[in-house]
């Protein structure tokens, strides 16, 4: 019962947050100078007026916002100004899988690399193993994706010829792109895991477990892991938000047709509905992820008594 109430209250909070995000993007976009029909060529005033009437941009902003929300609830994200003949739904349906695959693969790589490295470093604290691993992790944090990306491309793609450096058709470009994206988060997660594992390993119940003769590996994975992993789980929400944004950059590096290219173009050309649509989809994903993360955390640490 308590759990259900918690989930419902968190859902309501997320919906409210979603509404805020949609409203903020909508009004920022509309209050910014410039418009979707301003071109390099001078377009006659009356044509612009006509276009605005056609797209319903002449009505008061609040009315437009209400209409937009009404359509959004029905799953209609509106037309795209910049891509004639396409709706925002079309464009997102086309670009989203690319960004999502790279983002989630990147997250998987980050977790698969970061957590073991963090645990090993923590269990070999202040040894050369620890220093080396944390040095490499720091390298991963300091080298930006757009340095790692081209370097990886240069090395694996051109020198070793293992992967294709660009192009979506060839699935190997995914791997390189996801690796590029995931390395920073792997490094961050490794540092996070090490820190929290050390915290946990210094606690009394671990000493008790060791004192009664539990095998070291069992102490590490059975007793310490659950507590030590909690900050990493908490970080998953922000990490995913960062990964989605970061995938925009990685797509640019490897020339992948994800949402990123559309989004930057849309923002530059004031393609209002495409901007709003992209932000909405991403916000839904991130809020859902945060909800899941909260629930996992409660399961990991029941002391955190579902306080809403």
């Amino acid at each position, binding site marked *: 019962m308590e759990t259900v109430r918690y989930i419902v209250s968190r859902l309501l909070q997320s919906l409210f947050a979603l509404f805020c995000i949609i409203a903020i993007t909508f009004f920022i976009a509309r209050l910014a100078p410039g418009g979707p029909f301003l071109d390099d060529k001078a377009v006659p005033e009356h044509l612009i007026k006509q276009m605005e009437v056609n797209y319903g941009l002449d009505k008061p902003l609040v009315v437009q916002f209400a209409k937009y929300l009404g359509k959004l609830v029905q799953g209609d994200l509106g037309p795209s100004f910049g891509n004639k003949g396409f709706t925002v739904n079309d464009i997102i349906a086309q670009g989203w899988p690319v960004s999502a695959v790279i983002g989630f693969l990147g997250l998987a790589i980050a977790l698969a690399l970061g957590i073991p490295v963090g645990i090993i470093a923590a269990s070999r604290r202040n040894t050369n193993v620890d220093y080396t691993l944390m040095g490499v992790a*720091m*390298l991963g944090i300091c*080298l930006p994706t*757009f340095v790692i990306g081209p370097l990886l491309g240069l090395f694996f793609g051109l020198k070793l010829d293992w992967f294709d450096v660009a192009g979506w058709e060839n699935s190997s470009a995914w791997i390189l792109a996801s690796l590029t994206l995931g390395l920073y988060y792997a490094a961050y997660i490794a540092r996070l895991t090490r820190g929290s594992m050390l915290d946990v390993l210094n606690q009394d119940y671990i000493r008790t477990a060791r004192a009664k003769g539990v095998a070291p590996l069992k102490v590490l994975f059975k007793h310490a892991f659950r507590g030590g992993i909690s900050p990493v789980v908490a970080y998953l929400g922000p990490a995913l938000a960062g990964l989605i944004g970061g995938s925009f950059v990685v797509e640019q590096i490897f020339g992948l047709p994800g949402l990123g290219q559309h989004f*930057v173009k849309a923002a530059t050309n004031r393609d209002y509905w495409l901007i709003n649509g992209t932000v909405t989809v991403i916000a839904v994903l991130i809020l859902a992820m945060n909800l899941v993360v909260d629930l996992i955390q409660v399961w990991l640490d029941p002391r955190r008594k579902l306080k809403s």
Partner: protein
Amino acid sequence: MTTPPPISAVEHAAAEIERGSSLGRDAWYRLQKNKLAMISLWIFIIITIACMVVPFFPGIPNPNKTYPDLKSMDAFQSAVSKDGDKIFYLLGSDYLGRDIFSRILYGGRVSLGVGFLATLVSLTIGVIYGAVAGFIGGKLDSAMMRVVDILYALPFLIIVIILTTFFGNKLWLLFVCIGAVEWLTMSRIVRGQVLSLKNQEFVEAARSLGLSNWRIIIRHLIPNTVGPVIVYTTLTVPAVMRLEAILSFLGLGIQPPNSSWGSLIKEGADRMVSDQALLIYPSIVFAATLFALNFLGDGLRDALDPKTSKD
């Protein structure tokens, strides 16, 4: 029976102890013992000074001047261009004949400048927001922290992209945009500090003297949070510089022919097959700066808070 020491000597000793060592001096002492942090500090100082001062030296070419006849020169070469400029290329020239060394220096002024100013913006917002939330407490506190939670879930990069494209590529705007999205963690840290400070006697004393809330926050609470704030500031600067570089990489930050480290790396990445120097030199300088700042931040954390050090 020994005679007690003269009172003046006791006072003197007491004064000595009082002067003894401040928190700051202790921290500085501990920091000096941390080799990695000190090396980082020096690397950072050298890079900063080089970017600020060296461009004024004679013999440093204009970073934006192109020499079509001096394309892709190797490092350590001097050459005379058609219009009679004598140039020494310390790191070679790029695909337009521009001096890579001087472009890196000028790019560094933008990158470091954005790093510091945007951090200052985020510092100001974060510290005041966190201190107010923590000090007032109650409903206001939980509402303010809910807002932070919601903002945490936002894809920052996307918001910054929206803000910079909508309001033009002005440099000052970049500071504000980046600063405006980077204050969240700072506000949490300061709030936590203020929560643990606000029930201590010195705050009560200040209140019983009739000081206003605002004055207590500004004069008595915020100065006491300075340790964690310094540490986190040191770690915010590289984060902000990364963000600026990403924006420049996407073509939204600094506009050509001007450069920042991000836009230089972008140029290098675009031409990495033909000329790797364009990618490698700016990347090294950029990574070295971020390295230095991150290690310095870690070192400062150990120095200012010996309890949690080594973790």
